[in-house]
């Protein structure tokens, strides 16, 4: 019974992490399209492109590269 619960919890955790990955992809896609539109509509607004690039980097480094693992040992779950 306890093992069933544990397996279910691990599976739920897996699904949650996968869902988070999909949300990050959506955000990255929206930001990339936003960059493209800004460049086409208003080319001089380069600062917006820099902000978008930094924002995207933040998501990739935090949620895909899991930089927290470097500082938190192996405690951080996948």
């Amino acid at each position, binding site marked *: 019974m306890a093992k069933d619960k544990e397996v279910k919890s691990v599976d739920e955790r897996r699904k949650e992490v996968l869902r988070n990955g999909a949300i990050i*992809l959506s955000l990255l896609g929206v930001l990339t399209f936003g960059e493209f539109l800004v460049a086409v509509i208003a080319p001089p607004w380069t600062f917006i492109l820099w902000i978008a690039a930094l924002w995207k*980097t933040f998501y990739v*480094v935090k949620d895909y590269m899991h930089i927290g693992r470097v500082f938190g040992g192996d405690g951080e779950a996948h």
Partner: protein
Amino acid sequence: MAAHAANYLTKTANNRLGLWLFILSDSFVFGGLLVTRFVLLGDQRPELSQGLGLAVTLILLLSSFFMNRGEVEMAHGNQKGFVRNTTITLALGIAFLIGVVGVEWPLAAAHGLTTDSSAAGAVFYIMTGFHAFHVLTGVFLMYVVLRLGRKGHFTAEKHWPVEAAAVYWHFIDVAWIFFYPALYLMGLVAG
């Protein structure tokens, strides 16, 4: 058994630190190339297909998504899921390479943009070439990890090579996140 597991965790923590130090040092080279682009070209950019640039960027972002899925599946002991997602990542990586080196380079050359035609040409080929070389090594690394994974070399508890390949792949993605706007979006087309 517990001591063996603890030893593996210590080794993984050390390997992880080493990988991130390598990434930090490599990012200085990418940063140097980015600075070179702005010093040489200023508010101008090479004449490139913005649509193709967007397409290859989306391919690379999508590959990062599947790489993340592959790593998560391995971390939960799902070997099939790992193989499926990593294979998709590998295919997308090759598609990115074809898009940049196989399509964009000949297109740029056809428009007169070569390594010695102008500063814009030199900057474009060195930036995309250096990045493409990283993609190529990433693809090779992923192929090795995929082969080992198929043979059952990794488990939910022991899969450091998978994590390393994933982190390296995402780093390549981060580098392109800056190269894409710098080459395709920022400034006006060089005359």
